[in-house]
């Protein structure tokens, strides 16, 4: 930090309240991991690229985990209250790429 900046009132946040994260499993060894492209515009393939990166990183940590692409091409097709429990029965973890 610049010496000058020490004398200022910082305009950036001191505290953060991120959204509540989903429970994380201790390990993904021998687990099924779902990869979901929820980008508003899936035809841009940005979501698939993000998921490729996530799969690669997770595979490095847990080589025995298996990864499946889960089709869910729209954001609001099904209420999260019904979709999420259904996914929880099938997968140990979901990685979701979302945005536009």
């Amino acid at each position, binding site marked *: *930090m*610049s*010496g*000058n*900046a020490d*004398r*200022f*009132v*910082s*305009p*950036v*946040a*001191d*505290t*953060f*309240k*991120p*959204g509540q994260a989903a429970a994380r499993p201790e390990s993904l060894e021998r687990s099924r991991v779902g990869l979901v492209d929820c980008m*508003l*515009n*899936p*035809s841009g393939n940005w979501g698939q690229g993000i998921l490729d990166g996530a799969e690669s990183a997770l595979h490095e940590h847990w080589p025995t985990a298996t990864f499946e692409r889960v089709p869910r*091409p*729209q*954001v*609001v*097709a099904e209420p999260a209250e019904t979709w999420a429990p259904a996914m929880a029965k099938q997968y140990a973890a979901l990685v979701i790429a979302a*945005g*536009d």
Partner: protein
Amino acid sequence: MNDSALAEIEACYEMGWTDGLPVVPPTPERVEAMLGGWAPRRGEEVATLLPSGGVATVEKIAANAVMAGCLPAYLPVVVGAVQAVARPEFGLEAVLTTVHSCSPMLLVGGPVAEALEMNADTGVLGPGNRANATIGRALLLVMRNLAGAVPGGLDPATLGQPGKYSFCYAENTAISPWEPFQVEKGFRAEESTVTVYGADAPLCIAEMGRPDPESILMTVVESSLAPGSYNAFFREDLFLVMSPNHAEVIGAAGWSRADVQRFFFEQARLPAGQLRRRGLHGFAEVPDYARVVVEADADEMIPIVASPERLCLTVAGGPYGGYTAIVFGMGSSVTLPVPTA
């Protein structure tokens, strides 16, 4: 300016606190002066701002207001604006994290606009007025420093737009034939309010040859039929900043605000078949909000606002020239009262 003052400004650049323009360094003395009567509430949480989840306290907002160049009298408006963008219906996370170019626009209504000597007249959407420029800038510095909307970081806007520096105005209520905008939102004309909207850059439309309501409004309508706009897909709020000249012609013919909204709703339509081939349409699966476009016959005319009330009609600008600015955008605008210390 001496070397020390310049070094302080440079330090703010080094910290990544600025929008690219120089800022007033937020020294404790300046922040204290900005807080004024708000000082006892300095630690109060005004809002938690997505996408970063940063907590915006009164003091943090004041520090950003100092940097933007605000006078202390502007702070309540900035605090109110932060409260407004944090309301869930505004969709702050979507506005800030989209690759689209929208950014929080701020409309200040009621007596506070006059008290702060805001510009509602000639050049209203341009530079030159301290309150307009710095209040809008303060809100957007808050977006950067507290909400995390740093270009290339949590703000991935492909193009961005000049309104990401500052986009703040007041209505020209002295000339407008209609009640101020905040009355439409359930507030009294005597109440001071802030309205926020996820706005694109304004598109200024001229109509000076045909001084009758239908011609003016049809020029605006046809200019708003941009199938690649987010409005053509989401069909949410769309702002007009109508010049006094246009408003006077329309108002003098006996048209109410509701008449203008109804006319726009009925006329500003595109064929479903055209919409399906353009812009954001064309997904493999269609979200619910766009389904009306997919399910309609190809020649069915689809309004670009889902209801007349989605047209947000405001009046501002100088007395000469027949112009209306169309402000495309996304989401719903939010109007709140300006808080007091």
